[in-house]
């Protein structure tokens, strides 16, 4: 026999269980009868239902961003379509990856990103292009497709730089090129060779430019090299410590102009800071 003189708190728990579909059939019948005969219970139940509607309208289930799916693919070796892409186990990776290993991992990462996009691009068939460049181009394309090119949105380099500093081990060179017509859009973290690297996004008229900064590795290319990958202009160069890859859908000569502006500004900024050990 159910006690009729139940505590108000118990009433609330019962109303809530009815709302949540957690009562059995006889419990549902019992509660519905009580609501029908008790205006106060009816008002509370109406409020609970109104709250549910408000929460479902204001706080829908979120969708995991593509950027997160790419990071998980890089960290686990499982692309988001479920393909195993066989990364070296992070725990077994030597502290300093050899150049050969770097290329293998970058190729695997490119495969993961391409699989992720579901884009049937036959990138890995030719060895004419640098694997790192492919990964950076794929990240640039992913940003254009998803419309979410940056993780931190700011035209202020003093916002973007510290944000990146909290995410990646490299100190990022961020320069203000607004005077030359390149507006800083923000920054994001890309995964290249299983490691997070900073990418800046600049806008020039309707074109976007992704600029990724990487550890230099063993190759030094003080003069810039140009490529076209998947219809994108790619320029890469390196300095004493870093390698840079710029990608854009701008015509190659215009990307060259951007690179020249960036290198000038980066060099003059470096003069303001203590010189790096040669």
């Amino acid at each position, binding site marked *: 026999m159910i006690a009729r003189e139940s505590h108000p708190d118990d009433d609330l728990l019962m109303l809530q269980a009815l709302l949540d579909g957690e009562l059995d059939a006889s419990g549902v019948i019992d509660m519905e009868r009580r609501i029908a005969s008790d205006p106060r219970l009816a008002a509370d139940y109406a409020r609970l239902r109104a709250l549910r509607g408000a929460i479902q309208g204001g706080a829908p289930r979120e969708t*995991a961003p593509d950027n997160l799916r790419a990071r998980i693919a890089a960290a686990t070796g499982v692309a988001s379509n479920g393909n195993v892409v066989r990364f070296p186990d992070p725990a077994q990776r030597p502290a300093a990856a050899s150049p050969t290993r770097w290329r293998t991992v970058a190729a695997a990462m490119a495969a993961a990103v391409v699989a992720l996009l579901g884009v049937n691009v036959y990138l890995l068939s030719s060895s004419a292009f640098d694997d790192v460049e492919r990964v950076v181009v794929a990240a640039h394309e992913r940003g254009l497709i998803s419309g979410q090119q940056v993780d931190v949105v700011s035209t202020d380099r003093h916002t973007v730089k510290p944000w990146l500093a909290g995410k990646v081990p490299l100190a990022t060179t961020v320069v203000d090129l607004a005077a030359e017509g390149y507006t800083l859009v923000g920054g994001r973290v890309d995964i290249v060779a299983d490691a997070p690297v900073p990418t800046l996004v600049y806008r020039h008229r309707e074109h976007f430019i992704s600029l990724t900064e990487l550890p230099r590795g063993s190759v030094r290319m003080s003069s810039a090299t140009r490529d076209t990958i998947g219809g994108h202009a790619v320029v890469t160069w390196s300095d004493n410590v870093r390698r840079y890859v710029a990608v854009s859908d701008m015509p190659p000569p215009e990307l060259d102009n951007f690179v020249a502006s960036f290198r000038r500004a980066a060099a003059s900024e470096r003069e303001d800071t203590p010189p790096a050990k040669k």
Partner: protein
Amino acid sequence: MTTDAARSRFAEIVLPHLDDAYTLARWMTGSASDAEDVVQDACVRALRALETTAVERPRSWLLAIVRNTALTWMAKNRPSNVTSTDAEEGMADLPELTDPSPSPEEAVIARADHGSVRAAIAALPQAFREAIVMREVNGLSYKEIAETSGIPIGTVMSRLARARIMLMNTLGRPA
């Protein structure tokens, strides 16, 4: 060493529930970029666990890992946001709905704009916030919430009731 067997179990067990994982992490940490860090870390833990663990209910299992990762992560990186709800718990303390008479409150709650709803959820104490998000946003049953949070079903019910009373009192107040 991660085996391909674990990786294919990961694809089957974890990947279908990434949206739920991200949603929970988003509400627990209060930030999109923190949520990404937490979910990535949780996925790495999940992959490691799949070498040896058999999983019966994938979603609750993954969300339990996400929840633990989020709590650990916040204790380390956002210590000021982690509050104990021990003192706030218990059925004896359940506050009553503020207005016992039939009132226009229901209509006020129903009209609450999205921003106010999100702000009200974000302002809830951690334990109540995660319970209401698991129920209303992730759509978990009481039993699944109990499993995910490692608490008895009675505690799930009282946390949900507390969360709902707080939200109704916040949103039902005429602006």
